[in-house]
Each structure stands twice: as C-alpha cells, then as structure tokens.
C-alpha cells in the first residue's frame, strides 16, 4: 500500500541468519548433532553421563511446559505433577513386570489423559486463573500419592531399575541409560520442533497473543489450549518415564510444588517458546544446584537465587537469546559509532532487552 521503502540497511537478515540459511548448513547441522549425540555417551565419565541423562529428563519436562506456556501462553504450574504421574506409572508397571514398551505407552497416555481432563475444565479459564488451577495439581498430588499407597508405596515411594544395558552390548549402564534418554528425548524434541513450526505453531502463538483473533481465524482457543495442555502432559509423562529410568526412584516429594516453580524458572531461563531453550532450561535445572553445591553447599539457595537473577538480568530473553543478544550488541556498537544514534536516557531506549517498545499495549495480569 504505502510507497515508503523500509530503511534499506536494516533488512532483517543479519549476517548470522543468512549464514544459517545456506543449504549445506541446513543439512550438515542435524547430521552433526546426531553424530555428536551418538558418540557422547561413549566419551564421558560415568558421572558426566549421569548428569547428561538427568539434563535430558528435565529438558523434556521443560519442553512440555514450553508447549503449553511458552508457545501457547497458558501459565501452568502443574507440569511436575505429570512428571510425577509418569514416574509412578512407570514404577508401578515395572514392579508388576509389565512389558516395558507397554509401560512407556502408559506413562505417556495416562498423564495425557489426566492432562486432557484437567484441561477440559481449566482451559475455560485464562491468565492467572489457569495458573491457580494448575498449581493445585502438585499440591493435591502429594497427599493423594500418599493416600494411594497401594499403588505408590505411600511416602516411602517406589524404586524401579529396568535399564540394565543389554547383554553383549558392551555398554556400561550409565552409557546405555544415556542412549535411551537421548533416543526417547530426541524423538520428543524432534516431534515438538516440527509441531511448533507451521500450522500448529502459529495457532498456539495466536492463542497466546489474542484469543479473539485466533477465533476469527478458525482457531478455537479452547480446543487449542486443551490440545497444548494435553501434549504438555504427555511430554511430562515421557519425562516421568525418563525420570524413573535415570533416578530409579520416586516418592511424593518428586512432585512437590516447589519443583513446578523451578521448572517454570528453568523454562524462562532457557528461553520461553524455544526448543533450544528447553534444552538449556533442563541443563540449568540440573547444573546449577550441582554448581552451587560445589561452591558452598550451605549457601545453595543464596547462590541459586543470585545466578538466576544475574542470568535474567543479562539475558531477559533467556539463555537461548544469547546469539541474538550478541548480534544486537554488535549492531548497536556499529550503530553507536554512526552519527545517527546519540545516547539518550536509558528509559527511552526502545529495543533494549526484550522490551521492544509497545506504547499501546496494555499489560495483562499474568503469573
């Protein structure tokens, strides 16, 4: 419509993204990733492998949370419940000597079904209300798990070891476990990666952005919230399966409400609505306590709080926004030297951080 040319120098393709678009890079990158993942378990020490496996568990849990919260904008404080549910299903199934594939399927389906039920009710609400309804899941889940002690082992929990490396594979248990985590987690990541691009990704995003618009595009906000929530629960269930695979024990404490909050923090720190961010979030969830324990075990809370704040202060978009922040920083450096952008007060710098200037948007209540 308008004849105004956009400022020519400012095409969106920064050098790095155009580099990423080269065909050989597009093919080589996945291959490289697969290759690295294939040898990774073979080169690490036992503890490194165990740590990586744990990262995998929580990366999957964060990924699930990202589907419902990062992409679809529905604050869920219940994700840990689905992890716990998946873990219990797995532990129970293993204790009953069920076929492990069946156990895996149940560990996805039962949490998904629970998630579906909850979502059918909760998706009618929005914003903070949905946060409060989902917060109830872990909070009620803990006493419920104790009450159902026939299946859950009550407060003493359930142990299950089912991932001994197969005879003749020549692998240590930790290597085998890590391979399983990488394989299962990798598939979940890949599927989610595809899902949040294209039709469903856009649909989730518009449900997050503006439900009225979504509806007028033929996207029922309710149905898509339910869908996202169910997917998140299923992925949560998978992470519960992996949890049992790696940790081999679950108890009501597994799903304590504090962990749900930590998962949420991990999601934001990794980068909301980002696949890589989920992985980084999982790493943050696992590595930071490890790190703070190393520094001073009696100051873990203080250090963890401080690290969280520092990371977000530097990268409000989460760890996944680091490359973007770097290119922006470089661009700003270059621009800063030009005559056109003299400094002004910090408060009026649009584009600083994630807070791109949105003069007319109102802030909605949000948890």
């Amino acid at each position, binding site marked *: *419509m*308008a*004849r*105004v*040319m*956009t*400022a020519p*120098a*400012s095409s969106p393709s920064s050098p790095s993204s155009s580099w990423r678009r080269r065909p050989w890079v597009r093919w080589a990158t996945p291959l490289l990733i697969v290759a690295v993942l294939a040898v990774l378990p073979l080169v690490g020490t036992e503890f490194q492998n165990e740590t990586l496996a744990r990262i995998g568990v929580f990366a999957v849990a964060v990924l699930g949370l990202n589907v419902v919260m990062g992409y679809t904008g529905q604050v869920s404080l219940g994700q840990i419940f689905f992890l716990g549910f998946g873990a219990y299903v797995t532990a129970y199934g293993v204790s009953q000597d069920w076929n492990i594939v069946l156990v895996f399927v149940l560990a996805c389906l039962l949490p998904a079904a629970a998630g579906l039920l909850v979502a059918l009710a909760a998706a009618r609400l929005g914003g903070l209300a949905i946060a409060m309804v989902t917060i109830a899941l872990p909070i009620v889940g803990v006493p419920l798990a104790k009450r159902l002690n026939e299946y859950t082992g009550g407060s003493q929990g359930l142990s299950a070891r089912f991932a001994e490396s197969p005879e003749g594979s020549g692998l240590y248990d930790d290597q085998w476990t890590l391979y399983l985590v990488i394989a299962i987690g990798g598939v979940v990541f890949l599927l989610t990666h595809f899902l949040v691009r294209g039709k469903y990704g856009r649909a989730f995003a518009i449900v997050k952005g503006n439900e009225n618009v979504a509806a007028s595009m033929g996207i029922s906000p309710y149905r898509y919230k339910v869908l996202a929530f169910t997917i998140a629960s299923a992925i949560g269930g998978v992470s519960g399966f992996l949890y049992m695979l790696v940790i081999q024990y679950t108890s009501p404490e597994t799903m304590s409400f504090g962990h749900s909050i930590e998962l949420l923090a991990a999601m934001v720190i990794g980068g909301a609505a980002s696949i890589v961010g989920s992985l980084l979030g999982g790493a943050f969830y696992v590595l930071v306590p490890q790190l703070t324990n190393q520094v001073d075990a009696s100051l873990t809370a203080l250090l963890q709080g401080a690290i969280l704040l520092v990371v977000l202060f530097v990268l409000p978009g989460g760890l996944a926004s680091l490359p973007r922040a770097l290119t*922006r920083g470089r*661009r*700003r450096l270059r*621009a800063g030297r030009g*005559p*056109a*952008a*003299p400094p*002004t*007060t910090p*408060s*009026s*710098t*649009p*584009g600083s951080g994630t807070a*791109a*200037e949105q*003069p*007319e948007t*109102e802030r909605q209540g949000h948890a």
Partner: protein
Amino acid sequence: MTLLELEDVTASYGPVQVLDGVTLSVPENGAVGILGANGAGKTTTLRAISGTVRAGGRIVFDGKDIRGMRPDQVAAQGIAHVPEGRGTLGDLTVRENLMVGAYLRKDRKGIDEDVDYCLDLFPNLRERITSNASALSGGEQQMLAVSRGIMSKPRLMLLDEASLGLAPSTAKNVYDAIRRLRVESGIAMLVVEQNANLAFTLVDTATVLETGRNALTGSSAELKGMDEIRRAYLGG
C-alpha cells in the same frame, strides 16, 4: 515566539532509523500540521518530542532542550501527547481516565469544570462515565484519549490522528473544540492527521513528511493549492 523547535531530528527503533532530519517549529499559540503517507514517520516525530523514542538532533521547548527527557518529564513541561490508537487506560473507568489526565493539576475547581467540558463535548462519555475504558467503542476511546489531553491543560498538544475512527460530525466537533481551546486557552497544537480536509480547518502551516524527512513545508493556503497535495491528501 517559537514554542517548540525541532531541528534535524533523527530517531530510530533499534537499528532501524526512521527519522532522518525532521525540522519544524510551532509558534506560541500556533497550530502546525504534519502530513504524510503511512510509515512516513509522523507518529515517530511526535514520539521523539514526547520522549518515547530515542532521538537525535535538537528539540527545544520554550527555550529548554527537552531531547532525552523521560515522557513524564516532557509532560511536566506542559506537553500533552494524545497517542494514536487506543490511548486510554483500559482498566480504569472513564472518570478515572480523565482524573489521570489531570494528574499534574492542582486546581480542583478547574478540574471539575474541565471534566464537565469534556463530557459536554462528548456526550457518549457522559453516558459511560463509570464504564471501564476498555469497554468503549473505538470512537469513544478516541474521544477519551483526546479528553485526557484536554484535561491536562497543556501549553502544547500533540495530537496523533485525533479524528481516527470518529464519525464525521464528531470529528468536526473535536476540531471545533480544539480550535476553541487554542483561541480561548492559548494552547498550541501539533497535529498529525490523515483527514487533511479537517486538519486544514485548524492549522496555519503544515509540513509533509516523506521517509522521515520534510518533503514540503508551507502555509495551509499554499499547500491546499498544490496539486500533489490535493491528490494525495484532500481528494478531488
């Protein structure tokens, strides 16, 4: 006497520079218009003045350099910015919105009078005085935004498409009222307006922006006489 002086003003959103040397001046009690195609930089010019966007060059208000001030500091100098689009505070009632507009004023009586003035000007608002602003129709929100500007009794008003979404008669009323304010209260005006017919009933001079630069500046009469202006902005 010039009240507001812009000289070679530049502005950018992040790395994207959108103002490339805008120059204009608003005399005391004057009314100046800004015309231009979509995306020409009209809104950005007003934002540069009110401090919501990072700007370069010289912006002087009443002899004082206001470039780099925060928006509330600019407002405290006596500049009211009526923004484009939904410039209201959605979760506050209509009356509360008006009271926020009068935040810097101390004269209780004057405030009450002005509330009445606005409600007379826009009877729709009187009907919805206790409604949340977000429930109002598009046009009603626009009325409220303008009223908030009026409530702050500024020395200079920056109006960004004040007639946007207003019914023809209402739009005309608004401009009549603004003209009256200018005459009665001596408020100077800098208006961005797509409805150039309406704008020319108010402004003495106007400037046409093109890709962030002044393409033309002249008195109303001069501009109205130019073919390309007629074609692009006035019709017929």
